[in-house]
């Protein structure tokens, strides 16, 4: 073939690829009706169902800004590609969803396409929400329509070029997004759909994509410094070894015999899962328990040097033992057991360091309305001291997790 022929083949291939991207971006999509049907007042029971679903989906986590009006948007969501600002979901006609039809709202959640036809940035987890049923989407829409309209203009995203362009989003979606039907099983439906657990508990690739709505193999939460542990690993946050009641207790009250939630999960329990009814929590617990397990047994490491261990032991007795027990056995409500605690033993020490540095209260829940708080040691102990005490608890009471050093501590202090 001549050079000219090669060029023709190349152009043809490019056109085919572009065509494929366009087709893949339109899968399972129905055109919106021309006229927006007037949004009448929804029935109270539908609004109540929608309110429940909005909590199950923790929509307010992004769409209600700190100190801002409910669902009026504005929260900055930092991503490795730039910042996305959550939009206004209140029924304000100019700045919110007031002029949207239910069909447009469905298309946004199911297809990731806005009412004006633009592709949405997948910071909004529509790869999960695509699995939400049409009926539930209608209920959510009715609930959002019942909120007070708040005039608050959306802030444009500040994604770096080319990530925010429609072309880049189209290619990303062609590679990583397919509309999907709702799973029949209730637990799978909640976990992989509205609950969007994989948004944190999945493992993201360099382009920010997880391995699908059921990717629960754990990973670093982008830009937050926390690691969301795997939900299918008995050495991380898998619940296969727990009773259903124990998993329900964790999601409902923030603690059970084996674990206590902290960091981003404390907010999820406080604002979302504690509000789920028992049937839904049981369904979630049952589904998580049934996940095929991929155990990643940690490799035993040798403890830190004798002087570090001695410093750690002294600090532990002085600062930690009152609430976590002299042998890490815990002290009831005051502090969870550290001996055998998976959050202590995880290969990545990030969460443990963040908990020691930042402290924090457990989530206030109906089942545990007055939780105890752990002091933030960032202001009380030096990097050397924190590295010593964390290395000590990772190597005591039968533990063999690798020590941490001052650089690990310092990195977590940063943000």
């Amino acid at each position, binding site marked *: 073939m001549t050079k000219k022929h090669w060029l023709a083949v190349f152009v043809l291939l490019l056109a085919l690829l572009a065509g494929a991207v366009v087709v893949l971006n339109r899968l399972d999509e129905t055109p919106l009706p021309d006229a927006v049907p007037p949004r009448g007042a929804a029935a109270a029971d539908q609004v109540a169902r929608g309110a429940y679903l909005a909590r199950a989906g923790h929509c307010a986590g992004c769409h209600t800004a700190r*100190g801002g009006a409910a669902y009026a948007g504005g929260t900055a969501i930092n991503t490795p590609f730039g910042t996305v600002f959550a939009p206004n979901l209140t029924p304000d006609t100019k700045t919110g969803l007031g002029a949207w039809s239910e069909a447009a709202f469905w298309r946004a959640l199911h297809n990731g396409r806005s009412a004006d036809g633009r592709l949405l940035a997948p910071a909004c987890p529509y790869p999960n929400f695509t699995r939400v049923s049409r009926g539930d989407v209608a209920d959510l829409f009715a609930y959002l329509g019942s909120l007070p309209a708040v005039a608050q203009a959306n802030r444009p995203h500040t994604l770096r070029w080319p990530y925010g362009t429609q072309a880049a989003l189209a290619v990303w979606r062609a590679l990583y997004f397919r509309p999907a039907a709702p799973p029949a099983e209730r637990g799978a439906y909640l976990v992989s759909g509205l609950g969007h657990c994989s948004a944190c508990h999945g493992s993201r690739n360099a382009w920010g994509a997880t391995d699908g709505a059921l990717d629960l193999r754990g990973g670093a939460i982008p830009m937050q410094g926390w690691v969301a542990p795997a939900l299918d690993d008995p050495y991380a946050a898998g619940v296969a070894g727990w009773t259903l009641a124990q998993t329900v207790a964790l999601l409902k009250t923030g603690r059970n015999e084996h674990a206590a939630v902290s960091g981003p999960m*404390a907010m999820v329990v406080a604002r979302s899962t504690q509000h789920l009814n028992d049937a839904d929590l049981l369904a979630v617990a049952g589904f998580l328990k049934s996940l095929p397990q991929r155990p990643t*047994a940690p490799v035993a490491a040798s403890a830190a040097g004798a002087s570090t261990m001695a410093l750690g032991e002294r600090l532990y007795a002085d600062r930690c033992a009152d609430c976590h027990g002299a042998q890490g056995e815990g002290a009831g409500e005051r502090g969870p057991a550290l001996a055998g605690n998976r959050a202590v033993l995880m290969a990545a020490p990030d969460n443990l360091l963040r908990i020691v540095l*930042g402290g924090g*209260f457990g989530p206030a829940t109906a089942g545990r309305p007055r939780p105890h708080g752990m002091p*933030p040691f960032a202001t009380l102990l030096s990097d050397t001291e924190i590295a010593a005490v964390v290395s000590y608890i990772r190597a005591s009471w039968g533990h063999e997790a690798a020590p941490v050093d001052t650089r690990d501590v310092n990195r977590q202090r940063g943000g």
Partner: protein
Amino acid sequence: MRAAVAIAALLAASAAPAAPPLPDTMAQRVLACTACHGKEGRAASDGFYPRIAGKPAGYLYNQLLAFRDGRRQYTLMTALIDPLSESYLREIAEHFAAIELPYAAPQPASATAELLARGRMLVFDGDPARQVPACVACHGNRLTGVLPAVPGLVGLPRDYLNAQLGSWRTGQRQALQPDCMAQIAKALAPQDIAAVSHWLAAQPVPAPAKPAATLPAKMPLDCGGLAP
């Protein structure tokens, strides 16, 4: 092997002899607060973490909400209390408000007599030309605060007072609207902030240090967040 160790540790933990029941107190629950704010909330020695013991409950509650909602900025504080309910935050505020502790002696004044005199004048008379009301008009004649939500101004370190007035001036610290302290901090001349802070920090705290029950006259400005 690792699993065996972890499970053995868990079993050991659950098989340990039952410890005597620990007292279930608010003081236990709020160790996260007193680690920085000092034993029983009496303030840390570094002048950065202020005393919280004995401040009006409404004021403390407003500050907790302000950290939660972003009107005050301190990441550590915000993250600490983020997952708590409003009823529990109020209980925490009431816990610290009810603690009566003696105050330490004031810091020795390190400013010129002229600056201190200016500070004293602002505290008791304000600066009518700049429409700055007297501090005592809202914070009480004894400057120990007024129930339910106006804090006292004595017994605070100079650096803390300076920092708060400065942050109010720049909008870094905000209160519920109408934000009267922001108006005042913006109206004050910069050297007057130093004058007020120097004078206030040098005053002994009167005994008893309790906030006043009411103000003798109507407050000169409208302030948000004062309803009980």
